[in-house]
């Protein structure tokens, strides 16, 4: 274990774990967002998507000391908040909103790829 909180982000072993998990979430988010276009009202699907962004956000915030992970946390949180609004009926799923989420997902791919390259 790293000696103090905040060193996870610098530890190659934890970074590797983070990337492995994050890659799974990216894959699930990609799949889920594709489904969302055809099932815009599915609360189950939105709950599932929310869970992936939430866990990714949590994992990223564990990686203190890594600025790329801090960016990942911000984007995942932004996605989570939007997905919650969709789930709670405050916003309606539209093609534009799915595009927004896909754009954020693209950003996450770049950032996770960078963490994987360190």
């Amino acid at each position, binding site marked *: 274990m790293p000696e103090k909180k905040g060193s996870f982000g610098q530890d190659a072993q934890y970074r590797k774990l983070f990337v492995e998990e994050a890659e799974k979430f990216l894959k699930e988010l990609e799949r889920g967002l594709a489904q969302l276009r055809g099932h815009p009202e599915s609360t189950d699907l939105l709950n599932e998507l929310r869970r992936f962004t939430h866990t990714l956000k949590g994992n990223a915030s564990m990686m203190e000391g890594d600025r790329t992970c801090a960016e990942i946390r911000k*984007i995942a949180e932004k996605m989570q908040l939007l997905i919650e609004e969709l789930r709670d009926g405050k916003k309606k799923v539209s093609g534009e909103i799915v595009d927004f989420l896909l754009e954020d997902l693209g950003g996450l*791919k*770049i950032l996770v790829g*960078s963490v*994987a390259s360190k």
Partner: protein
Amino acid sequence: MDREVHMGEIEVAKDDENLVASGIGSCLVITFCDPKQKIGALAHTMLPARRMSFEVRNPKDERRKTNYKSSDTRYADTAIDEMLKRIEALGAKRENIEAKLIGGANMFPALKSDIGEDNISYAREKLKSAGIKLVGECVGGSQGRSMEFFVPSGIVTVKMKF
């Protein structure tokens, strides 16, 4: 002296400074060197270009304010223009500039969209149209990279992560 260039940033250097970048996955690092004047520039770009559709989206949307794409130097397109501006301001001559490309890996082949490949092909086109010599590349594949750019000599060393 080493200076780290993070994602979305541009740095210029003169004389005996080194510019370094790490965590280069699908990102594309572009280096410019004027070997006669010993001036260099490095851009750590993330995406090829700002998408046109991005400009016409709802301007009132709050989400835009924190969008990671808000900075121009994250795009190869605008970053190359900015690099030219800064390096020419230091006295570099466009006809002497030698460019190198590093990165553009496909980090997650299981996922859709290969941002790395888009970055590479876009930057090649842009350099060509700007009339800049492309003298070296270490691009593609599915491994991340880190690199060092020794400005006085223009030498770039790349480490691949396996």
